[in-house]
């Protein structure tokens, strides 16, 4: 088994696990340092973990509902802890989002009458002081469950979340101020949020506590039906790399992950070009 050592190491470059990744690893071992695998995938298809015989694994997660009000099941947290130990992941990347919510109950019903609503996709939370407090509480509990630290990934914001009182940048800043968590800065999510909220991405990114960035995510986006959407099947556009340059001028993350895991047909030449140009940016 191979493990990622990030202490006193140059920035590691990795790929999100998906169709075609095994072939890419074999074809370009000098360009790919690790594979990022969702815990949920390991849980449902444990054989995926055998890839660690070839290459180190970083654990990603979408099950903790860090910004939610319904805690994850103990069995889920135990399973995450087991995978974190088994993979010896240097950190656990988790979405600053919710994936489970209270049931929608009418005034005459009690919440306990219905089970929580569990989603398969993480959702941007209400950006408010109330949520910040909740995230801090959740993290305080969650951090004790794992050997590896949790780092938080910024969500893409597709529409105004009712009751929000702060911007995404302020929300991330407030959460990090009240926790020890590092930041998994998804540059595409960040750009999407800026496009959808009408803000200038370069101006806003400078307001983030970039010294807390541990890992960076890069993927594609597309604008459809008047909204910018996350898209792991299309290449990251130039503005994402402008944001990357901006961040790299200020900090050195421990890892950069390319998330092109929605399609087996992602153009290999584009991936190769992006991997090489990112290594050049880092002087690797």
């Amino acid at each position: 088994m191979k493990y990622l050592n990030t202490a006193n190491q140059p920035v590691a470059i990795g790929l999100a696990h998906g169709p075609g990744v095994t072939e890419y690893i074999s074809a370009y071992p000098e360009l790919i340092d690790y594979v990022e695998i969702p815990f949920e995938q390991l849980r449902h298809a444990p054989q995926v973990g055998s890839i660690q015989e070839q290459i180190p694994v970083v654990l990603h997660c979408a099950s903790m509902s860090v910004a939610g009000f319904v805690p994850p099941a103990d069995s889920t947290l135990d399973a995450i802890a087991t995978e974190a130990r088994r993979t010896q992941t240097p950190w656990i990347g988790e979405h600053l989002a919710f994936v489970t919510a209270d049931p929608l109950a009418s005034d005459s019903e009690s919440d306990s009458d219905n089970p929580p609503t569990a989603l398969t996709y993480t959702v941007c939370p209400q950006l408010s002081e109330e949520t910040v407090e909740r995230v801090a509480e959740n993290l305080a509990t969650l951090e004790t469950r794992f050997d590896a630290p949790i780092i938080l990934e910024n969500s893409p914001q597709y529409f105004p979340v009712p009751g929000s009182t702060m911007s995404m940048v302020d929300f991330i800043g407030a959460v990090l101020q009240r926790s020890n968590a590092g930041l998994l800065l998804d540059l595409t999510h960040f750009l999407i949020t800026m496009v959808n909220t009408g803000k200038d991405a370069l101006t806003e990114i400078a307001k983030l506590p970039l010294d807390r960035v541990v890992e960076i995510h890069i993927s594609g986006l597309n604008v459809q039906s008047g909204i910018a959407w996350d898209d792991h099947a299309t290449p990251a556009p130039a503005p994402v790399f402008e944001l990357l340059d901006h961040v790299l001028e200020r900090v050195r993350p421990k890892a950069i992950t390319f998330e092109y895991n929605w399609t087996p047909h992602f153009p290999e030449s584009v991936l190769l070009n992006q991997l090489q140009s990112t290594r050049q940016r880092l002087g690797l």
Partner: protein
Amino acid sequence: MKANKVHAVIAAGLHSPALITLWREDPNQLRKCGIEPESFDFDALQKFAGLTTKVRHNGLRLDLPLTFRLLNVAGLEIELFSAYATFRAASGSGYADTTAGRAQDLLHFMEHWLDFDRREHVLLWDMMRHELALTNLASVKPTSFAPKPSSTTKIPRPADVPRVRGTITLIELRSDPRVVATVLQEKAPRLNEVELGTFNFCYWRGENAATIDILQLNELGFCLLTLIDGATSTATLSLTITGENKTSRGIVRALGELAELGIIDFCLTKTKAVKRAR
């Protein structure tokens, strides 16, 4: 507004997008839950449901790469999957367990949802059927034993029975997906330059063939292949198409052309074969 209530509304809407339609039509449904409906952008929430549904269909990309590329280029991904998510939720049925099942379900939905006056919709409808035909034929196991034809003729007699050699799928299209595939390779595909018309395509996996041939047929050849069932004689096929008892030379010639291509051969009707054996 309390965060947990807001999350509950968003999660419920994403989990069952039909609720979003209900809330739009009857906002009091939300007020009963202590939620002010005016604060929600239901249109955006419905589109977000489309994104999550699209992601749930990523498994289809292996077999339908050009369909998804076309959806992306035409800017139809969110629109289509948002409508599909609402439709599925309203029908109360979940998504199929297999990618083949999901593809068929999506195709059935698209048939009713697409606006065939819109060029992009026409191209999409054609491309998905084209890719599915190739996928389905690729999964057909090659025939290990192909009985020899009773007749080696390429020009059938009225009693000869044409039969298809292998497996075919016949689709009438308004575009040529092979041309669209080339256009989609461009950085900025010009879909408005794709010629529309009538294209009769036959996807053919021959006996023992490892590959699939795509034949573009004229109307008569296409019609004949839809009628050939391995039991109907040339004379009966002619009668069915022309309404006349005398076997049409044109039909015979068209069958001969199909036989030249190798897609059909001929055998004798059972009665005729018995007579000849005597």
